[in-house]
């Protein structure tokens, strides 16, 4: 009797323990909800952080090629598309990194009558400013990129020698300029490469302290 009672009792106990181990429907759905919620947060954080942590994005690739002083030419289609995928093979490209934190930067280009365009990219790969030879003054590029502080100073005291220049106010102070010159034939490529070599991309201390 006592042995049977003990056996029965332990069986009942085991039953209760088993029931406790089985999560209830409420616990299950709470767990599922928590999983989905966490998955959603992780998903959003991952998507938003990819551009910041990627080292193969357009900016990083361009920064690896672009020098600080002057234009770096990408002449052959193979070299330009290896450096930056998606560049037009019929174009010769020039890359230049500019920092307008302390002094403005001057960008200039003299070309023949062929299409060219220019874009300024910030760190996120967003285009801050772009133009082509039609929007530029007489097809030639004469551009000054300034930070917001220098833009204010220019408004207050316009500099005489900057007349006819395109003044661009950069939101970011660290930018990469990409110059695209249409050059479909080998002879055009050589010409475009020479034009990029002669083009200017440098710091311009336009404010003379007095």
């Amino acid at each position: 009797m006592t042995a049977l009672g003990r056996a029965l009792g332990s069986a009942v106990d085991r039953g209760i323990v088993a029931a406790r181990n089985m999560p209830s429907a409420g616990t299950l759905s709470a767990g599922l909800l928590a999983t989905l919620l966490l998955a959603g947060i992780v998903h959003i954080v991952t998507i938003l952080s990819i551009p910041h942590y990627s080292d193969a994005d357009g900016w990083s690739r361009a920064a690896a090629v672009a020098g600080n002083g002057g234009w770096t030419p990408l002449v052959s289609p193979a070299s330009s598309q290896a450096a930056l995928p998606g560049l037009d093979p019929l174009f010769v490209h020039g890359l230049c990194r500019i920092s307008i934190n302390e002094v403005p930067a001057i960008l200039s280009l003299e070309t023949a009558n062929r299409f060219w365009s220019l874009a300024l990219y910030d760190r996120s790969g967003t285009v801050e400013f772009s133009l082509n030879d039609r929007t530029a003054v007489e097809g030639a590029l004469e551009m000054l990129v300034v930070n917001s502080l220098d833009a204010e100073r220019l408004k207050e005291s316009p500099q005489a020698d900057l007349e006819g220049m395109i003044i661009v106010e950069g939101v970011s102070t660290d930018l990469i300029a990409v110059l695209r010159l249409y050059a479909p034939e080998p002879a055009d490529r050589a010409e475009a490469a020479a034009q990029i070599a002669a083009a200017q991309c440098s710091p311009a201390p336009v404010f003379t302290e007095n």
Partner: protein
Amino acid sequence: MRYQLPLGLLGIVAAGFGIGMGSAWLMTQSIQPLDAITLGVWIASPNAGTPDADPYSRARLARTGELPLGSGEGLALVARTDSGGRALQSDCIYRVLGHTPQARLWTLSVEAADGRALASGGNITAVGSEGLFRQGDGGLNVVVAPTPQAGIWLASNGTERFDSPIRLVARLYDTPARTVTALTNFVMPEISRERCL
């Protein structure tokens, strides 16, 4: 009982991270941006590189490593399938026939699926719009094939494998097609597969 809660939590955290990151990865793998405009088989993303770009397109672009054309420069349209919906392959012959949207200059190029140049061994892989390449009605008639063809031929040889995936890119420069509303009214050439080798 003591170990039940931590184990359950661990499961939730693991599954949450797994599903969250897995779905994020899948979204960046998708070839078509979310805010894309499609013109037949051609896909353009006019918001790419602008402050209006959505987070998924930004993440996707960060992975492909491309710098999109600025709004003052032009717009790129990418085709990865023929007009029959089949993926473009380097071992097939395609005819690109029809009109392009208005632009001062456009180029058409054949590239590897990831945007790299093809090692075509001196063959032409891209053409520009400079008059020469127009038919009588002002349309475009180009053959994309791995072997020499009559007419205007873009060479799709030079891929890693004989039957690698390729893409065709039409880049329109100085074009009003940049605005979304204008784009939807434009037509782009058809890409018909003639045969595969």
